[in-house]
């Protein structure tokens, strides 16, 4: 397996091998699914849309709807006006969403289609019924990654829809980042436990973790409602979780409607969750609920029980930048030693922030943006690790190098659980410890000499 990968590090400038990122539109599509009653629309050829829907479906094991402008060669030469207009007419007639969220693809970006103008004309032609909304974002994949696409779409939703009436509302906004439905659910629960009314945007809980009840709902119960999004301009503050996925949209709301943006990291682990809770506390009429405090206590208890197994363990972390930054800090809390931290996405903040975190404690850690699984594997061949934390695409490395492997992030195509159990919050940290410790134990049980095969660990 992967026997073309050797320890000899070959310099590469042009060839990407086994990417640790994917393209913008899939992130935009995911974000759009977190609006209630929304049809995501991919403006380009149908292949991209098909790939994005398939990949999201494989990750969530749930229906993922989206339409496409189905460009053929003609549209590619003459522009996508006719295609998008016809698409909008069909979408509203057949699928009747409240809102269509258009994102572009590389193709329509290269052509340079001007979406707002096309939408305006479509409206004039009557392709968009009265009272229905069409918004858009630009998602050229030759810039950024799926996380950028997510962030761009969230920023656009806010730009198009958030309003300021001048009358402040007793609520905060939370932009949760490119996280699972279960994480969004958990974030809402934490807000509720502090008694803080919150608009979480986007919110894919009850959209991509729906029940099986014999009926198919094209627009499931969940998703941030349009009135809620509109009200975001009147909120007391916005908490944006994660620099790459969430800070941009929060700042754009601050600029547009002067809602102060609180820039936090993904609440994974104790300190990061504490920071989120502390931020919410300022708006909490009731303080931190006992339930949450007890949960935190249970997490710390588990950490004290389990830290012996993490002590000095060399860990490789690969994934989306906000996740990696948060996971590295959590691993340090556990006493582990994150030696490689990579993301496929670009962005200097990734390296700056991780150096700030790791330089004092793991000075020889390798930190790299715009990296890929191939080079991570080469580093591992040169300096082995005890644990690999990555999305599904880490599985080949884990197998061939025999490394305990925990799947975190997007996409996870070969395991279940990620969409039901959060990784954020105190509860999420408990689950992560559970997954990581058990992965370490499983390897020991599988491989240790018989005399060391122990019942109690």
């Amino acid at each position, binding site marked *: 397996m*992967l*026997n*073309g990968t050797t320890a000899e590090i070959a310099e*590469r*400038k*042009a*060839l*990407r091998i086994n*990417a640790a*990122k*994917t*393209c913008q539109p899939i992130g935009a599509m995911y974000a759009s699914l977190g609006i209630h009653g929304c049809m995501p629309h991919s403006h*380009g*050829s*149908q*292949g*991209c849309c*098909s*790939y994005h829907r*398939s*990949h999201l*479906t*494989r990750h969530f*094991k*749930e*229906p*993922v*709807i989206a*339409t*496409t*402008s*189905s*460009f*053929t*060669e003609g*549209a*590619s030469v003459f522009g996508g006006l006719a295609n*998008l207009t*016809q698409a*909008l*007419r*069909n*979408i509203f*007639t*057949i*699928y009747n969403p409240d809102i269509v969220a258009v994102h572009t*693809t*590389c*193709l329509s*970006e*290269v052509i340079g289609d001007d979406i707002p103008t096309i939408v305006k004309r479509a409206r004039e032609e009557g392709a968009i019924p009265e009272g229905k909304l069409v918004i858009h974002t630009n998602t050229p*994949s*030759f810039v950024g*990654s799926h996380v950028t696409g997510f962030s761009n779409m969230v920023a656009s939703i806010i730009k198009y829809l958030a309003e300021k009436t001048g009358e402040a509302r007793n609520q905060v906004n939370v932009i949760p980042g490119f996280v699972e439905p279960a994480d969004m659910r958990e974030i809402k629960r934490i807000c509720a436990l502090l008694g803080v009314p919150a608009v979480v945007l986007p919110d894919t809980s009850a959209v991509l973790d729906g029940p*099986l*009840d*014999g009926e*198919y709902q094209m627009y499931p119960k969940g998703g941030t409602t349009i009135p809620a999004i509109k009200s975001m301009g009147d909120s007391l503050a916005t908490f944006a979780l994660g620099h790459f996925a969430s800070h941009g949209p929060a700042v754009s709301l601050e600029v547009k409607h002067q809602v102060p943006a609180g820039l936090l990291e993904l609440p994974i682990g104790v300190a990061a969750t504490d920071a989120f809770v502390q931020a919410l506390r300022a708006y909490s009429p009731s303080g931190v609920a006992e339930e949450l405090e007890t949960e935190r206590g249970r997490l710390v208890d588990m950490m004290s029980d389990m830290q012996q197994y993490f002590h000095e363990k060399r860990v490789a972390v690969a994934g989306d930048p906000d996740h990696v930054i948060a996971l590295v800090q959590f691993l340090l809390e556990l006493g582990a030693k994150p030696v490689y931290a990579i993301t*496929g996405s670009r962005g200097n903040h990734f390296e700056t922030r991780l150096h700030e975190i790791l330089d004092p404690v793991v000075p020889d850690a390798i930190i790299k943006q715009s990296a890929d699984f191939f080079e991570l594997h080469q580093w591992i061949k040169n300096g082995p690790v005890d644990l690999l934390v990555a999305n599904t*695409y880490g599985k080949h490395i884990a197998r061939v190098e025999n490394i305990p492997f925990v799947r975190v992030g997007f996409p996870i195509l070969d395991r279940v659980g990620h969409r039901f159990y959060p990784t954020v919050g105190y509860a999420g940290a408990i689950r992560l410890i559970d997954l990581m410790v058990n992965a370490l134990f499983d390897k020991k049980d599988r491989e240790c000499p018989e005399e060391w095969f122990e019942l109690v660990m």
Partner: protein
Amino acid sequence: MSDISDPTLDGSSSTSGPGSAPPDPNAARDEMLKIYPDKTRRKRAKQLLVNDDPEKPAEIGANSRTIPGIITQRGCTYAGCRGVVIGPMHDVLHITHGPIGCSFYSWQTRRNLARPAPGQINYLQYSMTTDMTEEEIIFGGEKKLAAAIREAYRIFKPKAIAVYATCPVGLIGDDIHTVCRQAKAELGINIFGFSCEGYKGVSQSAGHHIANNGVFKHMVGLNDTPDAGEFRINILGEYNIGGDAWEIDTLLRKCGIHVTATLSGDISYEQVTRCHTADLNVVQCHRSINYMADMMETKFGIPWIKVNFIGASSTAKSLRKIARYFESKKLADRVEEVIAQEMAALRPVQEEARKRCQGKTAALFVGGSRAHHYQDLFRDIGMTTIAAGYEFAHRDDYEGRKVLPTIKVDADSRNIEEIEVEPDPTRFRPRKTAEQNAALEAGGFSYRDYEGMMREMKKGSLVIDDISHHEIEKLIELYKPDVIGSGIKEKFVIEKMGVPCKQLHSYDYGGPYAAFTGAANFYREIDRMVNTKVWKLVTPPWKREPQVPPRLVYQPKANREELAEATKTWKAPSKAGADE
């Protein structure tokens, strides 16, 4: 052909519920089309037919553009080229020239399994791309592609490199073919490109064609050393999803038939380069590879026949057809022996599944051949396909190859290169004499014979090309089939409606389903799916029944007394005792 509304069909009626007589197909069709805006309805009407006369299939509007805004199953030309036809070649290094996504999504997402020789690098585990950035989009990506090829060569030293163009590449005008030619000269290995930009054509199908052309031009015929072995054939259009090709290979080997190459399931570069030395091409998926079959016949004189290794009776028929072609009594006898053996093992499984599946209904919306082939497997266990359609097939796959001369070439097909093929001056070798062929054909044998899906479907069944999300929903509402075979994007929509869905691109990570041994897997799988208890749990009891007394754990009387007795022996601790 019997009518699908005939309740005596296959000996028992459908079990999909009391009084659920199948709807009138014309009314169902109207119901599906009703919601569409006029222009959309007119177009969909041509692609959504009632199979009124299976003997004379009606003209279907297949291989036409997908309507913008319709939720479609279809993917793109790149997916058909890189993903389907060439992707499975395991020792060719594949580089996607484009932004990151296209290559990322085609990285091990199709289950074309491969078992390269020990020590050989399996390139299917790698996803390589130029990961174009804005700079290359503006200033051109040829330099980066050339550099990427060099880097790939330096690191991996492959036998051959294939390069695929994606949408933006075509638009900015990168000339991948020149880059490949120069790299080939510089590095001394075979390097070739495919202009399979996603916007070409109307579906994956265009990509198949482009792939066929490229493989034929750049690989087939490079190595004239024939395989040892008697009765040498190639299997075309078999991609080893879930191990199907291995199953077929094992079966053929039992019969004494040698497979020179399977295009392109678990295939090596070397096998492709000498597949022109075989004596017969058998075509499994007609849609994706008929071009190759025709070109090989013209250039090298290898005839082709259509086969189908999905389904027991189809597999038997295909084996007999191959034996017939080789006109060898030894082979024919051996084939009969093998069929008898395999059927003896399969029959009990078939009977067992049939007990519970007989009379149930299926619908199939997938691919360019599977929607047809899998009907045979369902038929084997007494199930009827009430509706079927392809995702990206052409009229000939529905109506049979006889309609080929009448198919109009539209703008979308015209932009795909038709390569001129001539008989090879030295290597063209007819495998049979004219007399031999005449005799074979007089005996009912036919070459290049694909009759299409519609002739084999029941009168009154629905034939739906490029089915839309809306039509699937309506179909379920009206027909409530017992199982639907489809793809990943539809699967969970269908299952939310309480109908099990079998992914027939990826087999839901199961399989193999080909040949007799694979058929057994499929029968068991369908039996499990249509009879699983999970669907009975969908409605909670409080939605089904009026309030009833709670059902508590049953304790027989004696047991209760014993329990009561046991509690008596327990003494409450005294105040003082509690602190001890």
